[in-house]
């Protein structure tokens, strides 16, 4: 019913009120928050004067510390200072333990998900990320002097459904209203303002601390169309550090590194990497079991340590270009994003592959947050003349498990989102009332080689003879890249209920419990928050429906109009009270009564959208 907002996006109920919105780059190594003020997007500094906040959370018995102070404590308390938690988002316990032996944490199996034992008990990656998000949101609301209406959070384009959902859950836990999950490369393209008059194909090479993304976009008159995206959600600057640590360990002769020593070497490795990005040689002291060693590393040695990793990113570039159906000659510009693109070998390799000098004019550490802020400002409704359209794609194919452990693809990778695809299933037993679906994400043919997303159990199928029931299952991926599934029996029209068991994620109930049990929300706060949420939703519905009536009352019969107006006045009265359940009921009722009206308006406005087009053409 927000169709009025489509036509005139500026005409909301309070057109002059500037809403506070922020863009958050939740990075592996560093996180940033940015906003648009007086038309300019820039990153925000915290009380200590920093805009880059290390994505590190320290759990002490009596408090939680985020950022620089947590880094400082890391050597003394490695097990309680959580670094690079982004790499653990949406990941299982078994796979993490198998891959992350180097990390100094006490991993815990939380119903298949990975979590970490800390001084404040078991914390999962969603909770750790929520601490970082809350810190950044705090910086923003303090700087801007008010509560944030909404935020845009960036994720690597290559993040799968579980990783995206985990990010959204973290925001929910931090009490933030997520306007959109935005892919990092798309945010970077926005920040470069590549829409301003520039047209053509752009490649965004994004090498962060823990993730690598390559996206190929076509820009045309404000449309940012992602043609293909690829990458590796577990490859980044951290791996450069680990390569250096391995070399350091060889030099030290220590067969195994204790946690503290490992943390020490990791910090030294980071320093070496940074120094060798500016200089050809770096000399340093390496602490060892018997004192210390005076060592030096040359740029050339460093290059050969990381060469295999860089080559891996170039291979991904090649594949993604192929997916886009393009050659390097057709790529007009290459944008560099992420702190790891400061490494000279990376720049040379990318420049050579695309045969063009990569763009680095915006700080590669800040460009993503700036882009997110620009989009947040548009989404929250501050910029009514925004003429950008972001068309993103799904990075990895979605499929279903079929007989013999094979995967049948339903939505192939690089399909433009939102997308909905339906598939029909039938029962194979008389009177069968339930069935189970296993959804996977990935490009390989075998179930074992793809990533398990969730198992869906369909129940309440009307009992019929075998093969009699035809269940139409619709897989829908929204603009955030998140999957939802609905099912309907075709002949009876009965909607089958679905229970979702995420393979590497939290169920809605678990998230709700986490919110309730988190220290930040005492029981009363929690109820206040739920009430507030319903009131906000109620006012959205009231505004939207009122605007719709004002614009399109001619689509309604007199009786229909009367019924809607009554529902609206009830909604208004109820929403001023503090009965959360009653508000929700009034919202549901209003929605139900206006469903048909909304559908009519949608059809009507599709016709109008194109009619306007025809008039323009003539």
């Amino acid at each position, binding site marked *: 019913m927000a169709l009025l907002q489509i036509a005139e996006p500026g005409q909301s109920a309070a057109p002059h009120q500037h809403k506070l919105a922020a863009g958050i780059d939740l990075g592996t190594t560093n996180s940033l928050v940015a906003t648009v003020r007086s038309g300019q997007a820039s990153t925000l500094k915290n009380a200590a004067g920093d805009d880059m906040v290390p994505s590190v959370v320290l759990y002490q018995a009596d408090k939680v510390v985020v950022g620089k102070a947590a880094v400082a404590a890391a050597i003394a308390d490695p097990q309680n200072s959580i670094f690079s938690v982004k790499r653990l988002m949406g990941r299982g316990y078994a796979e993490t333990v198998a891959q992350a032996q180097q990390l100094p944490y006490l991993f815990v199996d939380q119903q298949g998900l990975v979590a970490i034992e800390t001084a404040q008990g078991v914390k999962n990656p969603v909770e750790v990320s929520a601490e970082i998000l809350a810190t950044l949101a705090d910086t923003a609301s303090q700087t801007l002097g008010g509560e944030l209406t909404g935020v845009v959070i960036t994720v690597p384009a290559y993040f799968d459904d579980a990783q995206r959902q985990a990010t959204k859950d973290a925001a929910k836990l931090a009490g933030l209203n997520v306007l959109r999950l935005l892919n990092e490369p798309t945010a970077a393209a926005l920040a470069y303002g590549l829409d301003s008059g520039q047209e053509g194909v752009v490649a965004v090479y994004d090498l962060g601390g823990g993730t690598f993304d390559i996206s190929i976009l076509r820009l045309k008159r404000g449309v940012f169309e992602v043609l293909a995206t690829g990458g590796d959600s577990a490859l980044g600057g951290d791996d450069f550090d680990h390569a250096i640590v391995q070399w350091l360990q060889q030099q030290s002769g220590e067969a195994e590194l204790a946690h503290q020593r490992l943390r020490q070497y990791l910090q030294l490795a980071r320093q070496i990497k940074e120094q060798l990005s500016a200089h050809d040689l770096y000399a340093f002291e390496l602490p060892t079991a018997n004192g210390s060693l005076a060592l030096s590393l040359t740029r050339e040695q460093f290059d050969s340590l990381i060469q295999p990793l860089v080559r891996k990113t170039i291979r991904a570039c090649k594949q993604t270009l192929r997916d886009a159906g393009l050659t390097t000659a057709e790529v007009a510009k290459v944008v560099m994003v992420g702190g790891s693109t400061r490494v000279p070998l990376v720049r040379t390799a990318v420049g050579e592959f695309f045969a063009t000098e990569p763009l680095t004019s915006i700080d590669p550490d800040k460009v993503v947050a700036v882009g997110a802020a620009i989009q947040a400002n548009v989404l929250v409704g501050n910029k009514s003349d925004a003429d950008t359209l972001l068309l993103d794609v799904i990075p990895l194919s979605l499929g279903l498990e079929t007989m013999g452990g094979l995967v049948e693809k339903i939505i192939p990778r690089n399909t433009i*989102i939102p997308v909905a695809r339906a598939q029909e299933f039938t029962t194979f037993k008389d009177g069968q009332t339930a069935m189970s679906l296993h959804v996977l994400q990935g490009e390989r043919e075998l179930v074992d080689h793809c990533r398990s997303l969730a198992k869906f159990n369909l129940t309440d199928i009307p009992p019929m003879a075998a093969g009699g029931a035809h269940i139409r299952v619709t897989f829908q991926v929204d603009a955030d890249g998140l999957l939802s599934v609905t099912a309907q029996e075709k002949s009876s029209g009965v909607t089958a209920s679905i229970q979702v068991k995420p393979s590497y994620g939290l169920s809605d109930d678990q998230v709700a419990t986490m919110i309730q049990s988190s220290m930040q929300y005492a029981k009363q706060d929690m109820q206040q928050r739920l009430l507030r949420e319903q009131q906000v939703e109620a006012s*959205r519905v009231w505004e939207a429906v009122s605007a719709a009536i004002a614009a399109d009352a001619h689509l309604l019969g007199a009786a229909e109009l009367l019924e809607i107006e009554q529902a609206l006045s009830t909604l208004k009265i109820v929403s001023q009270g503090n009965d959360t359940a009653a508000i929700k009921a009034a919202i549901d009722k209003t929605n139900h009564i206006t469903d048909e009206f909304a559908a009519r308006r949608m059809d009507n406005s599709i016709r109008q*959208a194109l009619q306007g087009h025809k008039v323009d053409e003539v």
Partner: protein
Amino acid sequence: MNYFQLFQVPAQFDLDLTELGTRYLELQRNFHPDNFAAASERDRLLAVQQAANINDAYHSLKQPLLRAEHLLALRGVKISHEQRSFTDTCFLMQQMELRELLGDIPHSSDPYALIDEAEQQIQQQKNSLLHQLAKALDANLHEQDLQAADIIRKLKFFFKLQHELELIEQQLQD
């Protein structure tokens, strides 16, 4: 849903893709969920569904085979891929020969020459079938529509061969 109606373009096989693209962007500019970030939950859901429909419609009209199938579906003709077997022995022979040619590529001393040859053959056959398809669909008569369905099934084999050829070429390059 009639995709041609949605984009207000003529319901025919021969389509102006530039015009289709313009209409598509026009609709997405209005219905992309980003326009509904501040809307109520129900409206946001509606917008996602609408935008998904528009994407699906565009996807179907952009590609000649899907467009032809959609056109036939609107005329009440189903393709029924699996049920019907081919009686055209000439076509089957041709397919077998092409498959053999593809199979030979990795073992050849000059694989790229074979790739070029296969590509040319596939392209030629494909174009000729696409031409026939356009003609059959233009007639807009039931008899010709059934022929068109047959041609679509044949074309699928060529598209598949082309895809396999691309994979072979990629493997060679890697």
